[in-house]
């Protein structure tokens, strides 16, 4: 028995001693996904991390320019921007020729065939298929002529009938598609840039059946034969990727930053992409600082480890060549009231008092190391409708005024006010954020309790209106303020995205009028007005517009933080010389 022990311990030490040599011949990159993903079916890619993986293999008709800001769409599988009829209802798309699907046993002889108009129309129908319960259906719900009717009709069948014509989805020729909308939908092209509508091949869907989510067959820059649910995903360059080239222009100053050095090169630039699933923050941080991971998003307590008070990278990281990217995010955090709760519905002064008592300065310091910005209203900076000069009179710290308003609301010093429970996710930081909120509000006599939930439970409570308040962050699905204003639009109330169930008929009218307009100064003016009127009502206690923090190692080239990350990796590059040189430091 002793020898067995010695053998075991011995082999343990031996193998620990000889870890693997690093590879400096291939251009490979190591990324982190902090959450498990839900497979590779585009129509279910509702969370950021699943979208990121779907986006490596699949492509949509459009994509966001990797460097230009404000965000700009560029054709991807589509050849050009579509021609739109005068009434804004009929879109004609030309698709690129010579785009090949990845090789897969689903195709004849196992060789990927050319993508065509039928594939795109099939993809759209698939989103509407009632049997599939696509998470991306909301994007096209009630938008395309005849599609809802098709969906309803097929709900009763065992298998949806894809052959049945849909008025709004028409094939003109092999590379031309005409789509008819029910009403103007200016966000339509954004919807076609989201992973939900990335193009799939009918053969692959049918060949793999329910296992389709593990066999991604796209047209994208990288190939994955099978998703095996382990904790790393390894992608390889798609050797048959079409002629797609690195862009030659970006935002002003990008060329000086060296972001355009690869202009004109054929994409993708990397041979291999490895994604590691690392849930806990300690191993994530440590793996980056051992150079096992090349790019890392910094969150929570790691922020203070990364930057100093002047928001500069700390010298111990600088000396290793690590680079810091601080980018304002298109998002907002908030404490939402349930406006169906009579406590909040009529009582605007109570809501205002709560907003005034919230100590945002402390929150910014404790949770974001002062990298976040106090949100004045629903629309975050960077979107049309946001006005820098606008300051919400109730987004400031004023205990006296808060007390006064609370008394006017009928609860002097909080007397008579019941305890209020705020629901959140069961994560330590989420809990601490409510604890700080509670601490702030205690000063005016309001008692706040914490309710912790798993993410699905939280969604469930909000959907069923079983909450008094909840806190959440909302990130942009696409760069249009409609995506944020819609959070307060009455018809969107639970189970829709308006979890606060806020209703204001005047606001709703303006919303209806503005959101059918194309992106024009006129529309921006309307958004501004809505944004600023609603701010006074304090439908939520506004929190922050956060800043994204990313670290990359010196050998990672062409990195620029992008809100819509799913197509980013094809533009990244690795400087192997630098990597070899610097790796000694780790």
């Amino acid at each position, binding site marked *: 028995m002793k020898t067995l022990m010695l053998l075991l311990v011995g082999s343990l030490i031996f193998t620990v001693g000889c870890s693997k040599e690093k590879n400096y011949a291939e251009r490979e990159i190591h990324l982190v996904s902090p959450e498990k993903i839900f497979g590779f079916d585009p129509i279910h890619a509702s969370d950021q991390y699943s979208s990121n993986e779907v986006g490596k293999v699949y492509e949509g008709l459009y994509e966001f320019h990797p460097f230009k800001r404000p965000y700009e769409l560029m054709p991807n599988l589509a050849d050009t921007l579509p021609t739109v009829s005068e009434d804004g209802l009929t879109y004609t798309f030309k698709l690129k020729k010579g785009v090949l699907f990845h090789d897969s046993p689903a195709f004849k002889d196992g060789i990927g065939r050319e993508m065509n108009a039928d594939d795109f129309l099939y993809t759209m129908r698939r989103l509407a298929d009632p049997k599939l319960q696509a998470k991306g259906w909301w994007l096209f719900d009630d938008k395309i002529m005849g599609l809802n009717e098709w969906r309803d009709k097929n709900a009763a069948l065992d298998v949806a009938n894809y052959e049945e014509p849909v008025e709004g989805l028409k094939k003109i020729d092999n590379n031309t598609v005409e789509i008819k909308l029910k009403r103007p939908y200016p966000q339509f092209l954004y919807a076609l840039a989201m992973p939900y509508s990335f193009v799939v091949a009918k053969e692959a869907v049918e060949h793999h059946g329910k296992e389709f989510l593990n066999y991604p067959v796209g047209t994208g820059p990288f190939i994955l034969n099978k998703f095996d649910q382990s904790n790393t995903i390894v992608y390889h360059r798609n050797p048959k990727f079409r002629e797609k080239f690195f862009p030659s222009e970006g935002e002003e100053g990008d060329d000086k930053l060296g972001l355009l050095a690869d202009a004109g090169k054929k994409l993708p630039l990397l041979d291999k992409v490895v994604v590691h699933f690392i849930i*806990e*923050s*300690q191993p994530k*941080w440590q793996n980056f600082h051992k150079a096992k991971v090349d790019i890392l998003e910094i969150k*929570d*307590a*790691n922020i*203070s*480890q990364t930057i100093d008070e002047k928001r500069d990278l700390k010298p111990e990281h600088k000396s290793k060549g690590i680079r810091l990217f601080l980018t304002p995010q298109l998002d907002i955090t908030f404490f939402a009231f349930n406006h169906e709760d009579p406590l909040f519905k009529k009582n605007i002064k109570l809501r205002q008092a709560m907003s005034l008592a919230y100590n945002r300065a402390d929150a910014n310091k*404790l949770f974001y190391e002062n990298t976040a910005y106090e949100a004045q209203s629903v629309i975050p900076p960077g979107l049309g409708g946001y006005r820098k000069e606008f300051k919400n009179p109730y987004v400031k710290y004023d205990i006296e005024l808060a007390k006064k308003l609370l008394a006017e609301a009928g609860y002097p010093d909080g007397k008579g006010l019941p305890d209020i429970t705020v629901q959140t996710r*069961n*994560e*330590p*930081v989420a*809990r*601490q954020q409510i*604890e*700080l909120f509670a*601490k702030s509000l205690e000063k005016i006599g309001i008692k706040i*309790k*914490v*309710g*912790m*939930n*798993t993410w699905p439970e939280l969604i469930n409570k909000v959907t069923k209106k079983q909450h008094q308040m909840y806190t959440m962050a909302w990130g942009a699905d696409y760069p249009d303020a409609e995506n944020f204003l819609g959070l307060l639009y009455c018809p969107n109330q639970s189970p829709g995205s308006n979890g606060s169930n806020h209703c204001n008929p005047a606001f709703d009218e303006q919303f209806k009028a503005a959101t059918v307009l194309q992106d024009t100064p006129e529309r921006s003016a309307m958004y501004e007005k809505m944004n600023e009127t609603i701010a006074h009502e304090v439908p939520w206690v506004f929190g922050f517009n956060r800043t994204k923090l990313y670290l990359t190692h010196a050998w990672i080239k062409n990195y620029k933080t992008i809100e819509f990350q799913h197509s980013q990796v094809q533009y990244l590059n690795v400087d192997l010389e630098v990597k070899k040189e610097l790796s000694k430091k780790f």
Partner: protein
Amino acid sequence: MKENSLWRDALRTLVRDKWTLFSLVIVVGYSLIALLSATGLIAADWAQEVGASNLPPSAEHIFGTDIFGRSVFMKVIRGTQIAMSVGLAASLIAIPIGVLLGALAGYFGGWVDDVITWLYTTFSSIPNIMLLISITMILGKGIFSVYAALGATSWVTLCRLIRGEVMKHKEREYVQAAGAIGGGHLRKLFIHILPNVMHIVIINTSLQFQVAIKSEVILSYLGLGVQGEPSWGTMIDDAKLELARGVWWQLAGATLAMFLIVLSFNLLGDALRDSLDPKLKGK
């Protein structure tokens, strides 16, 4: 009485051994702290800010302060209340169920035994952690779900042990004698047999207590436990992020507090078994 001297002997041995004495003192001390905290005499103001955010331990703040400048020491005290209450509640649920079912099964045998054996075999077939997770998940979060979950899992061992012990005693002379002079089943079981198997309850409880405390920490860490009150589990959960900032004292405080009480219950359980279990008597 023979049994009386067993307890007296046991007590004497327990006090003689200094490690056991130490554990006894710790257990009593923690219980007192929990009691005082529950009645609001101490640590009622744990949520008060006592200093700046994340101060390291010093003479003033012995375990330092947390992110909101609250005293970590006070939170540890408050957490003691939660931990002990979880142990207590689990025992209060487990002991009546376990003793009653175990005694009935052991005494009556036959189909009663079959049903009860089936019941505890079924419960013990589901690994504890899975049952704990399932119950707290379904009942919703909060301290009462934790009580219920721990109660539902911890009666099983006790029931099995009591059943075995009662079976043995049933055949003993004194029980037979009690039967001969006309004692009914209930009288035999509750007046004669049960007092003689009570040591099993004591030993088992002291060991289950620490299991309950450890489980609460894990459940709170998984976000299934206590809400709105500091518990050692949530403190450790916080600490996993704060370590990155170099804030180690919250982890240290909670771990130390938990370490002492779990250690004490373990030592005490061992000592109790050594001195109370007649099988090991005299060794």
